[in-house]
């Protein structure tokens, strides 16, 4: 009886340690959320302060330059246009 009891003690101890190690390993290799960094916040704040895209130009219409394309064209104040992606 004592032998069985001792064996059970060892068994539970080993299984507990192994389970802990396996769980640790799984968590260590799982995907982690990217916490917004300070830089992210700073940049978002800067973006929020920018004027909305509609404010750039007012349909200055460069279109009448000798061809048939007369759709209004706007000019961005930025070197890089303000592009947004969010699904459609």
């Amino acid at each position, binding site marked *: 009886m004592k032998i069985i009891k001792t064996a059970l003690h060892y068994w539970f101890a080993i299984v507990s340690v192994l389970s802990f190690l396996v769980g640790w390993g799984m968590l260590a290799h799982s995907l982690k959320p990217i916490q917004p960094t300070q830089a992210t916040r700073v940049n978002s704040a800067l973006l929020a302060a920018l004027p909305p895209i509609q404010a750039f130009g007012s349909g200055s219409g460069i279109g009448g330059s000798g061809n048939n394309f007369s759709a209004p064209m706007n000019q961005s104040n930025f070197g890089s246009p303000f*592009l947004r992606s969010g699904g*459609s």
Partner: protein
Amino acid sequence: METHRFRAMNTDVLLAAQGIPARIVEGFEKAQQFIQASEGRFSRFSEQSELSELNRSAGSPFQASPDLFAVITLAQRFFHQTRGLFDPSILQDLRRVGYDRSMDLLRKQVAAPLFESLLAGERASFSEVDLDERRGMILLPPGMALDLGGIAKGWIAEQAANLLSEFSSACAVNAGGDMFLVGLPDGEEQWAVAIEDPLQPEIDLTTIKVDPSGVATSAVTKRVWKQGEKQRHHLIDPRTGEPALTDWLSVTVIAAHTYEAEVFAKALLIGGPQESEEITRKCGSQFSYLAVDRDRKIWGTQDTLEYIHVH
């Protein structure tokens, strides 16, 4: 940087280019014409489109145009790479859940009818589509119908950007968030792309800086409608035939091609964190991704962060 906006493919399209204004106007005209012609070819909402003709031909060989053949060849490649999570043959399921007309029309109606009697049934696998490259023939299994919505939009945006680049030193075509970027604007080292908050699209969650490449976002919060009492969205999980139940609300992918970014964004969104790990392990060198969950937490891998330079 000059910009030009119009509506096509049931979404807002933005063309942006820098260079000589007269040349840019010509480029905008050519790009817009290309986009509108391609929409006519790939739309499932037009009975006259080549895609609708192909769908009607299911069971018989169909002589396809080089453009349609190219997109379906790409679709089959991505079907295998995404372990079937990207599957254009879910059109019957899309119709069953109420997406049977363009989103512009769907948004105007109160609620789509709920076809309780139409259950998701067995259908042939997209891998059974037979492509004869030499003759440009496509054979769909009987009863199969394709929706090339996302991949075609990405492909069209990229082709249009390449066309526009012949008239400009740096340009971008953004079709509802699927964009292709060519060259770099003067004085810039990268393109800045704002990522929308999927719960409040008018707000930007963050900004990524990317090299000239393709960027696309899939979201379950955009194309939504009511079918009876049920809330539906357009991303069908091919494993169930129903709108996907996802842990993430949106996924943005950066890849060499816009159609590639669009496909992987959709597959990662449908598959969620577990499948994404598998797809990333298999094809991770092809793309980087950024996912947003219901708590607005941003997910991705560390190498994604380094690549896309979230600031």
